Each structure stands twice: as C-alpha cells, then as structure tokens.
C-alpha cells in the first residue's frame, strides 16, 4: 500500500497534468475556429476552379494534344504518395489514421507490382513511415514553426510535386489527408491529383457541354490552369488537415482532462481511506495500550 505522502504527490501530479490538458484543449478550440473559417473561406475558390477545370477537361480530354497532367503518362507504374500529417502529436488518432491508410495503399500497390515513392508533409508522418518504408522516401516538406498554412505553402509543395512529374519520376500522384467533417469526426482520405480527376457532373451540364472561346488559346490556358488546380487541391487538403488536427486534438485533450478528473477522484478516495485507516490504527494502539495497564 502506498504511503500517504506518495498518494498526495500522485494527486498533485495528476492535477497539474489536468491543468495542462485543459489548457491545450482550450488552445485547440480557439485554433480550430480559425482553421475552420480559413477552410470555409477557401472553398469558393476550389469550387470555381473545379468547375472551370471540369468544363475544359471534358472538352480537351479526348484530343491528342491534351497535356499530360490531364491525360496521364499512359502508364500507372510509379505512384507518388503525398502523405500529409501534423507537425505535432497529442492529437488522438489523427496522425496514425492517415499513416494507416497510406500503409494499406502502399501494401496494395506493392502487391500489384507497382513502384511506390513517398513524399511526406509534416514531421509525424515521416517518423511513423520511416521505420518501415525508409527506402521509398523521395522527399519531405517541413512546415514546422508555421502558425497558419498559407497559399505559398501549397505552392511550395505543388512545385515540388510538379517538378518531379515533369522529370518523369512518377505517373500517378495521390494526396493523403484527413477530411474535416466535425470536431469528433475526421475522415482519412486519399485523393488523386495527377492525372487530374474530372468529376462527372450529372444533369444538364453533362448533356450540353458549353463551348468556350479561349483567350489566348485552349492549350495555353490548360497548361496554366492545370498546375494551379493541383496547387488549389493541395491547399484545400492542407486547410482541411489543419482543421482536422485541431479538432482531433481538442477531443483528445477533452477526454484526457476527463480521465485525469476521474483519476483524481479515485486517488482522493484512496487517500482518505488510508488516512482514516491510519487514524483507526493509532486509536486501537492507544486503547489497547490503556487497557493493558
């Protein structure tokens, strides 16, 4: 049985842990709001970009001269997985759920005889994947020390990915990130960015494709629009990820705070019992001593 002093120390230490987790939860809640607003503010851009690209791509897809970013390289032998995780831990299953999804994809691709290359964004994912797949790594983008993700960060990642694509290093690129649904629910998602996936619109738009005039010409516009679309997708993934990270951290810290509270209650009961037992023991000693006289 631990001594009274041990118990007291233990209670104190759990109490300070609770203070820390409580503070982290509140910080995460404040950051979450900002991250969520940023993600929502960026949505119109991504949607407009998707719509314009969709229109263009449907028209250009079948032509011989379609850019490789749209049509692909004609092979799917080499895959680049862009795994986006957080720079910091203590956010529940946030990082490991992305890593788990990426790992199962790596295994599937390997089993199918494909070549896999990994580009990580965020320290945590690199640490977790490095153990098993260190030899597949081609690069890492460091975002540590960054308060809010900006469009420039997405541009940096996009440039890295596009340069490798132009150099013929891979055929297909897929992003791995957590899609933010709510504070308690983040969905690990894989999204192919190269070659561009054009969502088939249903209804009127699909029946009557619009014929646009292009200024300057179609090819030039596509050549500029496609890299921007890649950047836009990376940017929205970064923002979704940032919001998810804060959401995951908030709920993880919430339950940590609750657990600490429960532990304090249990320890306090134990402490009081042992204190009472000690008093009873002393009383018995005194009484039996007095009786023996």
């Amino acid at each position, binding site marked *: 049985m631990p001594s009274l002093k041990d118990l007291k120390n233990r209670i104190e230490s759990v109490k300070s842990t609770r203070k820390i987790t409580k503070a982290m939860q509140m910080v995460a809640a404040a950051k979450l709001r900002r991250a969520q607003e*940023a993600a929502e*503010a*960026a949505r*119109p*851009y991504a949607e*407009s*970009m998707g*719509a*314009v690209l969709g*229109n*263009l791509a449907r028209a250009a897809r079948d032509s011989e001269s379609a850019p490789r970013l749209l049509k692909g390289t004609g092979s799917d032998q080499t895959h680049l997985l862009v795994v986006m995780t957080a720079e910091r831990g203590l956010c529940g299953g946030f990082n490991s759920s992305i890593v788990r999804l990426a790992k199962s994809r790596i295994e599937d691709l390997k089993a199918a005889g494909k070549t896999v290359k990994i580009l990580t964004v965020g320290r945590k994912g690199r640490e977790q994947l490095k153990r098993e797949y260190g030899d597949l790594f081609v690069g890492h983008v460091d975002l540590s020390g960054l308060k809010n993700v*900006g*469009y420039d960060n*997405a541009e940096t990642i996009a440039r890295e990915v596009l340069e490798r694509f132009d150099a013929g290093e891979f055929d297909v690129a897929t992003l791995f990130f957590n899609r933010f649904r709510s504070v308690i629910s983040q969905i690990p998602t894989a999204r192919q960015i190269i070659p561009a996936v054009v969502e088939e619109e249903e209804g009127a738009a699909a029946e009557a494709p*619009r*014929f*646009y*005039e*292009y*200024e*300057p010409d179609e090819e*030039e*516009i596509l050549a*500029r*629009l496609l890299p*921007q679309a890649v*950047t*836009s997708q990376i*940017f929205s993934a970064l923002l979704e990820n940032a919001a998810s990270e804060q959401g995951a951290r908030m709920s993880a810290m919430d339950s940590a705070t609750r657990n600490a509270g429960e532990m304090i209650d249990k320890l306090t009961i134990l402490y009081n019992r042992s204190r009472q037992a000690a008093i009873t023991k002393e009383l018995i000693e005194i009484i039996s001593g007095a009786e023996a006289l």
Partner: protein
Amino acid sequence: MADSFAFDLVAPERRLASFPAKAVQIPGAEGDFTALPDHMPLISSLRPGIVEAEGADGTRAFVVIQGFAEITPEGVTIIAERAFPREEIGRAEIEALLKEAQEKAETCPPEEKDVADKLVADIAHLLEMMV
C-alpha cells in the same frame, strides 16, 4: 436582355466579391475588355491589372495578379491567384510584388524568361495606373 448578371471574384484564401453586376471590365491576357450580360462563353487568362465591376450601388475595383476569368451568359467568375480590393492595396504592396517578380525573372530558366519578363512589365504598368 437581362440588365445584370452574377459577378464572383475568388482568391485562394477567400471570396472577395459576389454580387450582381451590370458590366465587368477585365484585364485579359490579350487586352482589356468589358463583359456585359449575355456575353458568349469565354475563358481568358488574366494579366496583372484592375477589375472593375459596375454593381447596383456603384463601381467596385479590385487589383488582380494573374488568374482566369470564366465568362458565361449568366455571369463572370474570376479566379485570381492573388487579388485585393482596390482600396486595401497601396503602391508599396505593388512595388513589393514587382520586386518579387523581377527577382523571379532573373533566376528562372531561359525558357520561362519571356513569361516572367512580361509579368514584370505588366506589374510595372499596373503601378503606373495606381497613381
């Protein structure tokens, strides 16, 4: 003919404007033009310049640096790489952008040199217009 159509201006980080406009003046890559309602479908890339949208309560101006404009009979959507409301941006910011573009033009590979130089010239032109 309808007398107004939808005008949207979006930048990567936020939506800057969304209102019905009577006419929108656009700095297209091959020259400025004005889009009116029922314009034929057109996709144009943009050069750095000023977008002016004439709405119900006056004209609003925006500075855009590169991007695209999608014009349909029903509306204009401008997808800008960078955009600022005219009143929020001063000469200093544009000078900073100009400097950034100049540095890029000096360091970029020769095959992209023309494009980068044109960007510098366009931003310099924009700077003159800002006075």
